[in-house]
């Protein structure tokens, strides 16, 4: 028997299975509350970040939800959790991305945010849309990471010449790099427009499809309207923080340092050719799922058929589709426009001279202190309880001191007590003997 016959739709078991699967997916694909590892993992080499932490491995959680679509179709509540967590993560991570100075950190939180979009899609039952975004995101996010790698490479080389210890990943030390790394800058601009959702680049199609799916689900379950709205605001922030990254890195005056500047060079072909290849894919990737051109939907049909039988998804009228599409483009363009208006790369100071952040900006830069909260609430209490209560208390105190050594002390005490009767003094023996005899007599008399 297959799952649909064994599990009733909406049953507790189905919901539990789906939620537990999603917990694993949330860990793997860096969703709230298990996303904190991904930005830290960016400490690895940039190509690893590009491949493992952006394009492939982290998307395994999305993949698993798609694979296990039957369970999520059988558990609408769990699917709503998936979409809700996705929406929350998409927005939350995007806000953190707004204030990061480390170029890789921005991209890391961007990845967390984009994974949130994928979960919005699969949570809304649009499995093909989720996979579509997974694929297009792989193209442009790998491009962004490799581009960041190219930038960091150039920065390192420049700092190496002067033995400077300035941070090669801090955008406040960059600026104006477009003149020095033209290919990297152009390729990354393609990816930025794609992730922001500017047509006809790949990201536009996939993100639009996800938001459309959420909106359509809203007709059945108004909760999904909120999901859609979160996604939309997230899209605005995405366009904003990505434009910010590009402006601070490649435009405005250069802040690397006068001695270092002559040593800034475009990376060799071995690094730029992959950028160009990914840029081409970023431009053309949207065709994967275009009606009449691509066939991702039909391709995935055997996988998602059983889910679509259980949970029928609605259809959008062409008019609505066009309206939403227009809105999405407007939002993306608005984000880019706002960033160019509000941000002033020419006013930025290098990292060592930059003033400290204050207020909400500081909170964003410090990532809402989530790492510290986890440390206080989970890690330290667990270690503390294990050390103080379990080890020193139960193990060393209760079992060893009281139990084991206590019984040893008891045995020694009894032995000592017994040894008191072996004093070797005849007088004592006589006294005890007489007392004993008297006691025996007394008892016998009492009995008689």
């Amino acid at each position: 028997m297959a799952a649909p016959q064994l599990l009733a739709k909406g049953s507790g078991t189905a919901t539990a299975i789906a939620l537990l699967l999603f917990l694993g997916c949330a860990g793997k694909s860096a969703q709230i509350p298990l996303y904190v590892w991904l930005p830290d993992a960016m400490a690895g080499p940039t190509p690893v970040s590009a491949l493992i932490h952006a394009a492939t491995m982290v998307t395994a959680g999305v993949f698993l939800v798609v694979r296990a679509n039957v369970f999520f179709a059988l558990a609408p509540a769990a699917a709503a959790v998936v979409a809700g967590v996705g929406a929350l993560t998409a927005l939350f991570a995007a806000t953190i991305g707004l204030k990061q100075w480390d170029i890789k950190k921005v991209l890391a939180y961007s990845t967390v945010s984009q994974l949130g979009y994928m979960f919005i899609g699969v949570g809304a039952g649009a499995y093909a849309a989720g996979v579509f975004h997974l694929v297009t995101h792989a193209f442009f996010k790998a491009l962004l990471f490799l581009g960041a790698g190219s930038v960091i490479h150039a920065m390192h080389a420049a700092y190496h010449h002067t033995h400077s210890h300035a941070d090669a990943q801090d955008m406040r030390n960059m600026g104006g790099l477009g003149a020095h790394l033209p290919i990297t800058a152009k390729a990354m601009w393609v990816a930025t427009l794609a992730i922001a959702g500017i047509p006809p680049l790949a990201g536009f199609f996939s993100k639009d499809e996800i938001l459309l799916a959420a909106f359509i689900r809203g007709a059945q379950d108004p909760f999904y309207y909120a999901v859609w709205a979160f996604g939309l605001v997230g899209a605005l922030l995405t366009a904003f923080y990505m434009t910010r990254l590009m402006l601070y890195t490649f435009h405005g005056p250069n802040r690397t340092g006068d001695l270092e500047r002559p040593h800034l060079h475009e990376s060799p072909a071995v690094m730029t050719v992959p950028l160009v290849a990914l840029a081409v894919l970023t431009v053309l990737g949207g065709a994967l799922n275009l009606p009449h051109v691509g066939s991702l939907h039909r391709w995935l049909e055997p996988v998602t058929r059983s889910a679509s039988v259980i949970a029928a998804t609605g259809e959008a009228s062409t008019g609505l589709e066009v309206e939403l599409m227009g809105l999405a483009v407007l939002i993306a363009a608005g984000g880019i426009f706002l960033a160019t208006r509000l941000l002033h790369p020419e006013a930025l100071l290098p990292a060592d001279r930059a003033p400290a952040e204050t207020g909400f900006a500081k909170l964003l830069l410090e990532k809402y202190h989530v790492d510290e909260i986890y440390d206080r609430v989970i890690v330290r209490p667990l270690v503390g309880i294990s050390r103080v209560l379990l080890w020193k208390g139960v193990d060393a105190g209760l079992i060893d001191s009281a139990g084991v050594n206590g019984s040893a002390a008891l045995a020694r005490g009894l032995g000592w007590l017994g040894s008191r009767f072996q004093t070797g003094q005849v007088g004592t023996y006589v006294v005890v003997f007489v007392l004993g005899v008297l006691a025996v007599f007394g008892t016998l008399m009492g009995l008689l």
Partner: protein
Amino acid sequence: MQTLLAGLAYDRWIIAALLWLPVVGAAAILLAPAARAKYIAFGVTLLEFVLSVGLWWAYVPSGPAVQFIAQHAWVRDWGIQYYVGMDGISVFLVLLTTFLMPLAVLGSWKGITERERGFYALMLVLATGMIGVFVSLDLFLFYVFWEVMLVPMYFIIGVWGGKGRLYASIKFFIYTMVGSLLMLVAILMLYFAAGRQSGNWSFQYEHLLRYAVLEPRLQFWCFGAFFLAFAIKVPMVPLHTWLPDAHVEAPTAGSVILAGVLLKMGTYGLLRFAVPFFPAVAIGGTVGKVVIALAVVGMVYGALVAMVQPDFKRLIAYSSVSHLGFVVLGIWALTVQSVQGAVMVMLNHGISTGALFFLVGMIYERRHSRMLADFGGIARVVPAYAAILTVVSLSSIGLPGLNGFVGEFLVLLGTFRTHPVAATIGTTTVIFAAAYLLWALLRMLYGKITKPENEALRDLTRREYAVLVPLLVVIVWLGLFPGPVLRRIEPSSQRFIELVRLRLPLEVPTGPTVAPQDAPFVR
């Protein structure tokens, strides 16, 4: 291979050879010059291993329950026999013993410099005791081997151990002795009950199994005595505190054998004696629930306490408490998968934890410290050591593809069908295992070198590679191809469950059975 072994009449002499060769070796060591001791010990244990490898082919899973039987009268008047044989479970525990012994000798090569003759002779006697425990089919004989093995271990810890060796060895000895004397009383009770019932006086395992009918109250106490003896050995919380002390003080070889083989004698005893003799008490009713609770508590407790240990050796000792909880859980869950898993965990724990103790010993020989805080960043100076320690740790954590995963997964899978809550809580252990071992690796191996003393550490020597590489091979082999081992364990696990079920008045919940064709990924 099978025809060759049959031609040699392998099944008739193999147990005798494995049992008595070490004794001969020990005698030879005592007669030879001290400098020769380790060579003789290594030669004998290696020969043992080579001989025992034939068991892989000679044991026929589809054959009789017990194979390689040898039976002679020993004390005729009391019905005591020299009666030995092996089923699938014994075969692998014996193989584990013969596999670890030469490595343990090789691992002591440089570490043991005083009274070498005594040390190696005791190691060989220990081998006889351990193998004897796993092959005895006469309970008196079993008891003799059980006690015989205690003495060499006592001296190995007490003479060649660290600073607190006296406290540790006496603690170990008294703890074990209390349990085993009570077990002796229980064995005698079974003996007299069976004798009265059948009119036939014998300590034979099957004889006692069939005729030793005790009234329920006595059954409870009798089970309690067996259980106590084995639970101390396993060790189960809260009877575990001898283990960290014994491990920390024991020399490397002592720790390896203690963790690798001796602890398994406890779980083996539960599997072979405590549960089959008294299934109604052990499995049904409150006792069964208490044991499962103790197993689960031990798994979590051991892991949490391991997490906060500053001493790497003590950390591994507590991780043993945690891992052995899996074995007890698997036995009590009473499904084929869980019992097979329990046996697999016994083997895997022997190999992985044995390897971990070797690795700690190697770094201790260099730095005379086992404190995690004394290291940091040493992966830069000893890359090969760091790589092997990482792989072995991952296997101990239970990373798929390495051996540890197979047993733990089977236990959890099998347990979930009868005790879903226990299995669920048990799963968290795997997370904690990752936490305590990876955290230890992080502090010890990675990052910058924090102590100048560590800058000139020597990486592994050829002798050390010779110890570690066989362990690594088995770790990967059992991780990727556990099938042949599981196939050989399955009939014996099945037989254990039938034995218990047949004698169990209460129906044990079995959970829904899944037909193979509906679950293509299960097989």
